[in-house]
């Protein structure tokens, strides 16, 4: 393969002004990502307007910075407040928070930064090598293949996501329906606009993401924060010592491999890979500190795994044009705004842009590592600012940002409506990620579905002539059937399936147990004072005794 474009891309990247944009991105991403409850998807959505008026290359570079900064911001809150920004960093809290309580939060954050860097970089290197190959392969994809792939992607997000699968499916269906609002691309007919002219072009993605991720979180905290205020635990020095790094090296190595492999799965395996890495490290642990009491290996492994997986999920986005999770969905729309359509054609038609996307990830990762260590102290300060002051400021930024999307108030109102919807969804146990992802993929799915029907002249059995599409549909069925079969098997022989941890069923169940693990697990609830600010471990009083929860979606 020809590496000239890769190297040329770096020359552009290393210009001082581009470095500066990356720096601004990382700092802004960390500043917003460090706010409790705001995960990477919310962070990117909130900061997107910053990049609107910029040229594509600096804006991509800044986005990469925001992406890594936002992810790391979630790690900071997971360790210091036990408030992970996303499910994947909930695993980091399992060991990171006990460390912070012992006054060693800095150690956890430092190792976390190194682990994130290594995990992310390993993934980008592989991405650099693999992406063009997959993209070449994907050029052969036609409408039936895309239909099957998109269906599989939505299903995976719905089943790997938080909480109830039925509720996730409801969210996904609503997202698909919302995507049909506006003018029909085939017939030009208006659908679900209720005569509203502003809906003619359909709903936009960014205000929806800002609403259900950003504003909804703030509204949710508005109801909770009267009861308690939490203060982060003081931290020690962040730069990890030699001994610490020695302890962490092996977990980082294992976490990187695991994270990349699981991260390749569409559906974004960040949480699953962090869980798996935690489980493995716990089994292998021979260190002085038992797991649950602040074992650094339990931070190093999962952090590496989750970053490797987060980066690996760029592969389906850049090569197939299919975002694998909510964060990628936001990145997808961010790239679209810059006039970059992620997909198999990108490498061929615009290699410069393609490589600058990938190279800016190297840059974002490095800048994060170099910046994170000295700046952690500053970001920890943000945690001391009361949310009663921070939340209104973020709300204002979100509103102005939403206005800048099309320079009209309508988008701001969309943010508010979806903020309220997201708040209600959060209250009633609906994960917003499937809705957002299904909304993004909705028009792609419908287009390809209709094209396939036209292609087959209505005879759906002709899909059997498309082996790739058939394979994907087979996988789709597997994802649907495995949890059901496991549940049946568990009902008959609970002794057999109870120990199963690596199956799809366990993967689907994982986040619920993660929530339990961060909240009331026997490991972490050892502290007598409890956790006033902890997210409610919804509906689960039992904690995972292993890294991953017991298989089977049913709860006793």
């Amino acid at each position, binding site marked *: 393969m020809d590496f000239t474009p890769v190297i040329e891309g770096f020359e552009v990247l290393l210009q001082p002004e581009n470095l500066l944009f990356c720096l601004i991105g990382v700092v802004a991403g960390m500043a917003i990502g460090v706010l409790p409850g705001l995960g990477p998807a919310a962070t990117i959505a909130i900061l997107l307007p910053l990049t609107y008026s910029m040229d594509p290359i600096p804006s991509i570079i800044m986005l990469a910075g925001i992406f890594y900064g936002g992810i790391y911001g979630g790690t900071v809150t997971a360790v210091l407040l036990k408030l992970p920004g996303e499910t994947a960093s909930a695993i980091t809290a399992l060991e990171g928070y006990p460390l912070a309580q012992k006054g060693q939060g800095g150690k956890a954050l430092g190792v976390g930064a190194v682990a994130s860097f290594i995990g992310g970089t390993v993934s980008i290197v592989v991405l650099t090598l693999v992406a063009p190959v997959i993209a070449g392969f994907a050029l052969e994809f036609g409408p039936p293949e895309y239909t099957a792939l998109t269906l599989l992607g939505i299903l995976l997000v719905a089943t790997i996501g938080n909480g109830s699968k039925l509720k996730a499916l409801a969210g996904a269906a609503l997202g698909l329906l*919302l995507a049909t609002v506006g003018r029909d691309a085939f017939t030009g007919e208006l659908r679900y606009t209720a005569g509203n002219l502003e809906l003619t072009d359909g709903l936009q993605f960014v205000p929806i993401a800002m609403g259900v991720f950003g504003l909804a979180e703030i509204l949710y905290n508005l109801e909770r924060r009267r009861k308690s205020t939490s203060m982060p635990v003081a931290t020690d020095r962040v730069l990890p010592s030699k001994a610490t790094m020695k302890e962490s090296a092996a977990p980082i190595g294992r976490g990187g491999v695991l994270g990349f492999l699981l991260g390749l799965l569409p559906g974004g395996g960040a949480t699953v890979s962090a869980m798996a890495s935690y489980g493995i490290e716990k089994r292998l642990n021979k260190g002085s500190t038992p797991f649950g009491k602040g074992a650094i290996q339990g931070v190093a492994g999962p952090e590496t795994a989750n970053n490797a997986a987060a980066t690996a999920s760029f592969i389906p986005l850049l090569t197939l044009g299919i975002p694998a999770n909510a964060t990628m969905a936001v990145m997808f729309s961010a790239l679209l705004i810059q006039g970059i359509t992620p997909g198999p054609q990108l490498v061929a038609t615009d290699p410069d842009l393609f490589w600058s996307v990938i190279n800016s990830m190297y840059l974002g990762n490095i800048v994060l590592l170099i910046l994170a260590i000295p700046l952690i102290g500053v970001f920890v300060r943000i945690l001391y600012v009361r949310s009663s002051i921070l939340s209104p400021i973020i709300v204002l930024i979100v509103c102005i940002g939403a206005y800048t999307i099309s320079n009209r108030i309508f988008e701001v109102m969309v943010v508010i409506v979806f903020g*309220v919807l997201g708040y209600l969804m959060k209250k009633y146990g609906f994960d917003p990620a499937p809705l957002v992802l299904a909304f993004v993929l909705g028009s792609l799915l419908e287009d390809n579905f209709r094209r396939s029907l036209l292609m087959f002249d209505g005879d759906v059995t002709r899909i059997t002539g498309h082996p790739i599409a058939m394979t994907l549909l087979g996988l789709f069925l597997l994802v649907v059937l495995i949890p059901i079969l496991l549940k049946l098997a568990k009902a008959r022989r609970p002794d057999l399936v109870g120990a199963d941890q690596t199956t799809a069923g366990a993967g689907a169940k994982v986040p619920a147990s993660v929530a339990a693990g961060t909240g009331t697990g026997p490991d972490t609830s050892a502290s007598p004072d409890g956790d006033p600010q902890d997210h409610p471990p919804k509906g689960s009083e039992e904690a995972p005794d292993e890294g991953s929860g017991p298989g089977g979606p049913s709860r006793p």
Partner: protein
Amino acid sequence: MMAPTENKNAPATGGYDRSGDHSHGPDAARSSAGRSPNGPEPEGAAPGAAGTVAADGTGESSDAPASDPDAAPGAGRATNLVCGAVISLVGAGAFAVALDLGLGSLSRPGPGTWPAIVSLMLLVVGLLIAARSAHFTDSERITKDAVGVAAGVITLTVAVQLMPLVGFELPSVALLVFWMSVLGQEKLRLSVPIAVLTVAVVHLTFVHGLAVPVPRLF
């Protein structure tokens, strides 16, 4: 060819959509949005939940672990039943509109084909949620603290609506002060300077730095 079709169908579609808007909204978003600002006891979901939860202790005990005093109390079966019902209604309403748009056929899919499939899925999933409502333990009750949420949403909406009329600066300052001092119980001598400073920074960043045409006074 396309234009006449559109014209012919436009009035019918428009009419249907408008009527549809009340029953299901273009989306659940609107209908649920209408629900929440009414206050902490929205019609439907929450009173039912609040009412039943006390009686229906089954879901409760496992929902709010004692170790987490800040956890919102769990909602009972009624809440999930209403959730499922609302989802099904949205699905049913959307399906009605899809029928009106024209289902087409498998060989010639129309504008309503895909929405019909999706809304049927919504309908079925909603029914399943309602049927399994007793088994969910992941909903929270809307507590009386949600007054703050409602007040937040209403003030935000008012401020946003005022922005095109009087510029974004004054509504923003008022909004920030309200959120900080009324909702967040911060002292005025803290919230007013922060609000003014924030708006000044936003003004500088967006209006001057990024040259975004935000409606403004200055």
